[in-house]
């Protein structure tokens, strides 16, 4: 069955439809009264049109019927018959949603609940300005009534009612012969086919039509040469022949099948078709036919000398004529902006890319290893080797960047969802909001992009719900009625920085503080800086909305945002000015596969600290150090006390420097801004490291984010600063942490193994 054949394309269809829905939605959100961009409208129309087209092929009748309604209205917009109003855009957006629903029902293979589309269809039809053109809500593609009468075409693929309608139209034709009267046996058809001379120039080839007739039964074909000019006058591009075909076909071959053969040329040719039923019980012999043996009910074939094919009355155009009805004002998509996303791209399974990323990671490590070994060679020798290695290093770097860029995606795929959200939030809160976005083309790793959706959604809701004032209030204090939310993205020193800025009332610090005290998050009487108060909103369970609104005030707000962001290796900060607005700043690594780190040593161990966490490193003087009894050591750094964490104590590493004045203290900052001093032996240098999941290869360890392999083949742990702070808080001054000591020897083994591997 055809439908089975096609089912293999369903996944392509659903994938593509999802892209098209996004295109349509983006376009619809930009659609506004006044200044309608025709390219945009065309792109939306095309999207809906393509979804409908594919849906029909798979027999998704209801979906197609609905898409048709949607498309009809879009067509009206395209032809400027339907003015663009806010109401229209709202309805179209809803229609896009319903279309998405219908697609997901189709994808699940379930029926859409009855009435899923009714409201939207009714709403859409209201814009057509006339009563339902085709009654019967859920009818499959209701081909507009005007399309039916042309009985020469379209017989093929139209499903359902449309097919029936065409059939009905066909049956009404007085000229239709009545082969049905014969119970079995054959019907003899006589077809006189006089194409007009220019037929070939439309690309039609009579030979193929005659062959098509032959496929319907036993055909005898007589070619008439009467109009053939002398060779001198012959124009090879014109057609001078005509034919009479006598076709003996099964009764099952009806008039439509024969009409179908001449589908494309019926208007331009003189075609006469008639049928003759055989006398009962007599099988008509094939020799009974010739061009002149006209069956009884056949109009005498026009004399061969007759004037060349007068086209049937319905013909209104000739191939060279001007396009009738083509004068409608439309910009047939020449805009490259909204061109289909399919051009010049290939789809690759993500696993394949990840394998590639992995291999490149291994290569980076191998290359670093070779470089390490080469450094030990006596200088001045092996010059070619050194040069070769430099080239290798360069290419490896480029390869890594290229591979990473395959996974990179513009943040626009996330940003493009936000106008919708803003629209909804604005409607729900009764506020007027303008969303400004910039830097949509900034690229970042796919995983990062995907994980940005939730945090950004929450932050924008938060800005609208808590940040922006209502329009009346804004007017009173001299601000424009509509608040502005600015969403921006930019690359900054190897990270992507995303900012959500609003021009609302800013963080109400008094309220935040009292709320925090009330919730027991802050001791009463504690003195906090403005910045510290602002950051209280990131604490779990904190929510300032007096009443829980259905938008953001569920108390699972900003702490979840912060957790999501930090799980991506990112940080979030807030800057707020009362009365002027707030700015949330997210900073994220561009990729989750490579990290800029600082390699430090503790005893024999190497660790990597993410560069983003590091504030500075310094060697304290004895006077800077203070011991708190039974608590922990603190250090005075830049005028504030910072807790010291001895990594060797935390991880139980022997032969490490314990005295901070002889080693170094690396001052690090967690994403919530609290600082910590890590006591290390030495800072070895900055390096890009390939992140290897510890969970996947070993198990989760406290205070450790991941692992990496250094140039010398050793496994180094990448430290998780926030985790270290938690550990140090709990372990206090204990010199060793028994739970973690057991972990490291195992890793040491791995490192040894690694070293033993041949390079």
């Amino acid at each position, binding site marked *: 069955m*055809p439908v089975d*054949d096609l089912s*293999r*394309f369903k996944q*392509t*269809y659903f994938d*593509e439809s999802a892209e098209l829905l996004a295109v349509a939605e983006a376009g619809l959100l930009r659609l506004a009264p006044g200044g309608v961009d025709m390219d945009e409208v065309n*792109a939306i*129309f*095309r999207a809906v*049109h*393509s979804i409908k*087209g*594919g849906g*029909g*092929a798979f027999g998704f009748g209801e979906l197609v019927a609905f898409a048709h309604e949607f498309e009809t209205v879009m067509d009206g917009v395209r032809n400027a018959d339907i003015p663009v109003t806010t109401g229209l855009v709202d309805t179209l957006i809803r229609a896009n949603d319903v279309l998405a629903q219908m697609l997901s029902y189709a994808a699940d293979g379930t029926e859409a609940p009855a009435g899923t589309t009714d409201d939207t269809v009714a709403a859409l039809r209201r814009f057509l300005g006339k009563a339902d053109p085709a009654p019967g809500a859920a009818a499959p593609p209701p081909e*507009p009534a*005007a*399309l039916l009468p*042309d009985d020469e*075409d*379209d017989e*093929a*693929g*139209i*499903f359902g009612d449309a097919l029936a309608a065409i059939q009905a139209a066909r049956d009404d034709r007085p000229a239709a012969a009545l082969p049905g009267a014969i119970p079995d046996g054959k019907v003899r058809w006589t077809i006189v086919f006089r194409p007009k001379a220019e037929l*070939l*120039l*439309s*690309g*039609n*080839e009579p*030979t*193929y*039509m005659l062959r*098509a007739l032959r*496929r319907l039964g036993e055909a005898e074909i007589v070619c008439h040469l009467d109009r053939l000019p002398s060779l001198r006058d012959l124009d090879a*591009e014109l057609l001078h022949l005509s034919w009479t075909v006598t076709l003996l076909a099964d009764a099952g071959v009806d008039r439509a099948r024969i009409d*179908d053969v001449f*589908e*494309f040329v019926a208007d331009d040719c003189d075609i006469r078709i008639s049928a003759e039923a055989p006398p009962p019980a007599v099988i008509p012999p094939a020799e009974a036919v010739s061009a002149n043996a006209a069956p009884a009910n056949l109009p005498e074939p026009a004399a061969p000398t007759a004037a060349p094919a007068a086209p049937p009355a319905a013909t209104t*155009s*000739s*191939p*060279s*004529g*001007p*396009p*009738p*009805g*083509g004068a409608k004002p439309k910009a*047939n*998509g*020449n805009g*490259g902006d*909204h*061109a*289909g996303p*399919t*051009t010049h791209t290939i789809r690759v399974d993500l696993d394949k890319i990840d394998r590639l990323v992995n291999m490149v990671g291994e290569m980076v490590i191998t290359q670093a290893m070779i470089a390490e070994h080469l450094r030990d060679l006596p200088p001045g020798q092996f010059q070619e080797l050194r040069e070769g290695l430099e080239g290798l290093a360069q290419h490896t770097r480029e390869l890594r960047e290229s591979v990473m860029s395959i996974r990179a995606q513009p943040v626009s795929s996330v940003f493009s969802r936000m106008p919708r959200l803003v629209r909804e939030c604005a409607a729900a809160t009764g506020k007027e909001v303008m969303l400004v976005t910039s830097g949509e083309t900034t690229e970042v790793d796919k995983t990062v992009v995907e994980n940005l959706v939730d945090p950004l959604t929450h932050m924008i809701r938060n800005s609208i719900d808590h940040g922006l004032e209502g329009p009346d209030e804004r007017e009173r204090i001299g601000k424009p009625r509509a608040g502005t939310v600015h969403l921006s993205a930019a690359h900054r020193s190897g990270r992507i920085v995303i900012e959500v800025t609003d021009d609302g009332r800013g963080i109400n610090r008094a309220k935040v503080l009292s709320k925090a005290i009330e919730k027991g998050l802050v001791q009463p009487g504690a003195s906090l800086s403005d910045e510290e108060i602002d950051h209280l909103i990131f604490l779990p369970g904190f929510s300032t909305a007096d009443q829980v609104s259905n938008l953001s005030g569920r108390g699972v707000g900003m702490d979840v945002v912060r957790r999501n962001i930090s799980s991506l290796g990112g940080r979030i900060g807030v800057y707020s000015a009362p009365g002027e607005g707030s700015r949330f700043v997210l900073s994220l690594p561009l990729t989750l596969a490579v990290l800029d780190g600082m390699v430090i040593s503790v005893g024999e161990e190497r660790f990597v600290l993410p560069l983003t966490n590091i504030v500075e490193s310094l060697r304290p003087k004895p006077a800077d150090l203070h011991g708190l009894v039974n608590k922990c050591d603190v250090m005075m750094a830049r005028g504030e006390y910072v807790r010291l964490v001895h990594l060797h104590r935390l991880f139980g590493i022997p032969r490490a420097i314990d005295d901070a004045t002889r080693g170094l203290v690396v001052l690090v900052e967690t994403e919530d801004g609290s600082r910590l001093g890590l006591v290390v032996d030495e800072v070895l240098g900055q390096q890009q490291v390939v992140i290897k999941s510890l969970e996947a290869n070993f198990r989760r360890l406290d205070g450790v984010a991941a692992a990496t392999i250094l140039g010398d083949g050793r496994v180094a742990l990448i430290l998780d600063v926030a985790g270290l702070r938690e550990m140090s808080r709990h372990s206090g001054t204990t010199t060793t942490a028994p739970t973690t000591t057991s972990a490291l020897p195992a890793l040491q083994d791995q490192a040894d193994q690694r070293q033993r591997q041949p390079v």
Partner: protein
Amino acid sequence: MKKTVMTVDDSRTMRDMVSFTLRGAGYDVVEAADGQQAMSAIATRKVDLVITDLNMPVMDGLSLIRKLRAIPAHRTLPILMLTTEADDSKKAEGRAAGATGWIVKPFNPDKLVSVVQKVCG
């Protein structure tokens, strides 16, 4: 000798289906995502039939048909337009532009093959 059919459609689904169906019926198929791509592709290889969608970005189907017909070598090249817009004016427009015929979407594979046979054997 295998005949080559070019399918021009901005919808990947459609291109896939046309290709699959026609390859199954013994044709070679080349694909293009819009009129422009079709024009550049047809300059480099022999094509026996073009099946084009009408609504496409960059260069739509009617423009493609007109451009092809303006090239002497393609004056008699069969060109089928693929459309869901089964109205007369579209067809007349297509015909005026020089289309050989049309296939109305959605189509089933048998119909596609039979139409293709009808215009290019």
